[in-house]
């Protein structure tokens, strides 16, 4: 195990009713590391990242963040700790503009008399800068409901990066993107890593994971079945390992 994991879990489990969807998962993510998660539908990947994002509470086990045990009772707790997530369906409010979505739940406010009012101008300015840094030509006052799929994805990314996360969780971020947009997103993962942000990237596309991830974990039936360090010279060998792990066959 690397010396300074940003995040570590021990015996992490989750049951919905009587059904176990995550069984004693132990894993870690290092600082500046990009970790890939692969697995079929129902493997437990999304449940795992939603626990880390504070959406679900674990049924058992522990989470350590920056070396300390943490309990996330809500998405706010995880965000306050420095964990951001980009949801598969993006989780945006179509009737709000780009800036309002980027700052939703964490609005900047300034004092007016005894009350605190929204600092709309600063939020607009900061949203404009954030979108420009992502290369997005989107006015911050444009309604999200009027945007294309790619633009919406960028709003979601801008929201996740706005408050300088230490760990970014990306749940199938490439699922609804064109090939060009997928490459832009994967480049972004590399840039984030260079900036010191750790990333957990969920994807069904093994080739995407192999191109940007330092390690890849394969999950099946709520448990980790294999872990590899990508090597571009041994792609077919790694694919065989992953395939075996995902299908439950033994590796010959």
């Amino acid at each position, binding site marked *: 195990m690397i010396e300074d994991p940003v995040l570590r879990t021990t015996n992490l489990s989750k049951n919905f009713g009587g059904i176990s969807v995550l069984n004693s998962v132990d894993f870690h993510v290092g600082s500046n590391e990009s970790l890939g998660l692969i697995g079929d539908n129902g493997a437990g990947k999304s449940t795992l990242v939603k626990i880390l994002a504070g*959406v679900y509470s674990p049924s058992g086990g522990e989470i350590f963040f920056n070396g300390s045990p943490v309990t996330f009772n*809500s*998405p*706010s707790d995880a*965000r306050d700790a420095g964990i951001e997530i980009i*949801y598969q369906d993006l*989780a*945006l*409010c*179509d*009737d*709000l503009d780009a800036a*309002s979505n980027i700052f*939703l*739940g*964490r*609005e900047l*406010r300034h004092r007016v008399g005894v*009350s605190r*009012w*929204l600092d*709309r101008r600063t939020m607009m300015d900061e949203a404009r800068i954030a979108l420009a840094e992502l290369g997005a030509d989107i006015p911050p006052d444009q309604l999200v409901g009027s945007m294309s799929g790619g633009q919406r994805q960028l709003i979601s990314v801008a929201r996740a990066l706005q408050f300088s996360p230490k760990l970014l969780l990306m749940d199938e971020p490439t699922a609804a993107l064109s090939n060009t947009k997928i490459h832009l997103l994967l480049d972004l993962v590399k840039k984030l890593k260079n900036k010191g942000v750790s990333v957990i990237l969920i994807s069904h596309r093994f080739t995407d994971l192999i191109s940007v991830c330092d390690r890849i974990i394969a999950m099946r039936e709520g448990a980790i079945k294999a872990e590899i360090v990508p090597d571009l010279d041994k792609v077919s060998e790694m694919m065989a390992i992953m395939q075996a792990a995902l299908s439950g066959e033994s590796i010959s």
Partner: protein
Amino acid sequence: MMAHVDSIKKGATASNNSFLIRAEKVKNHLGPTILGLLAVLAAEILIFTIKSPYFLHVGNFANIGRAMSIIGIGSLGATIVIIAGGFDLSVGSIMAAAGMLASFLCNQGLSTGIGLVSALFLGGVIGLLNGSVIAFFRINPLITTLAMLSIVRGIAYIISGGDAIVISNSAFLAIGTNDFLGIPITVWITVALFLVMGALMPRTRLGRYVYAIGSSLRASKLSGIHVNRWIILFYVISGVTAALAGFVTVARTGQAEPSANIGAELDMITAVILGGTSLRGGKGKLLGTFLALIVLAILSNGLILSGIPSYWQLPIKGLVLMTAIIWGEIRRTSRDVD
């Protein structure tokens, strides 16, 4: 010389362009619903001025103002709840119960202020119950507030034994009958409430979260917003504004009765929907509701002045509501196609 003329022409064109750009911005900011309501308002004034010589009389405008203010005060809370993706059918019952409580307390010798605060408190508590059931048990707001409509109205009947309470407190009655600067006090109250809430909506988290929760409850929740607390607050606001509307009703009519304000919720919902608020949540403006209230009040007043029997008003209002819903749906689907 030619260069000078060209520069003047260019200046004029630039000035025209800047005016057009500004006009376009105002048009976009107001939106088609507000502009449509302003057009309907102008048409109403024109038609009823021709139909009745009394329509443009100052006293008639005071009547229109008094008529719209009761539903207007309640519509404020209803707009917030509907933009937030909810619904409150219990407002009419809250109005009756709050009016009866205030009347009872004032007739016991307590001050109008205590009567008012008690009425608002009752409205707030009923809103709290509505909001809590909807937020924590995820029960459909229509069902929840329909049940609350019956419960509150029933309790008002049980406690009063079905009897009306006649008000003798002159300070209480003055709120509903007196004018200030020639304008009814109830109109001042309505306009002040709309101005205050209209100023708060774009500047506070309250306003931001009304739209966010109405647009996507899930996205709001995942963004760390305590959606349950906010939903409860929206229903508390609806309860308090309904209670104030009930208080004003009693101040205007001079008596409180358990059967008062039956159907008020439908008038409020008509104003809110006609004002452009989406039944699906996430969209709407207080200005739209306010203009719709004026349109509806002038319609009722104009129909009476034109000699059209009062029972025609109900189907006409229903028709207006139906048209507003169909118009909103056509606009929504055309946007989706775009």
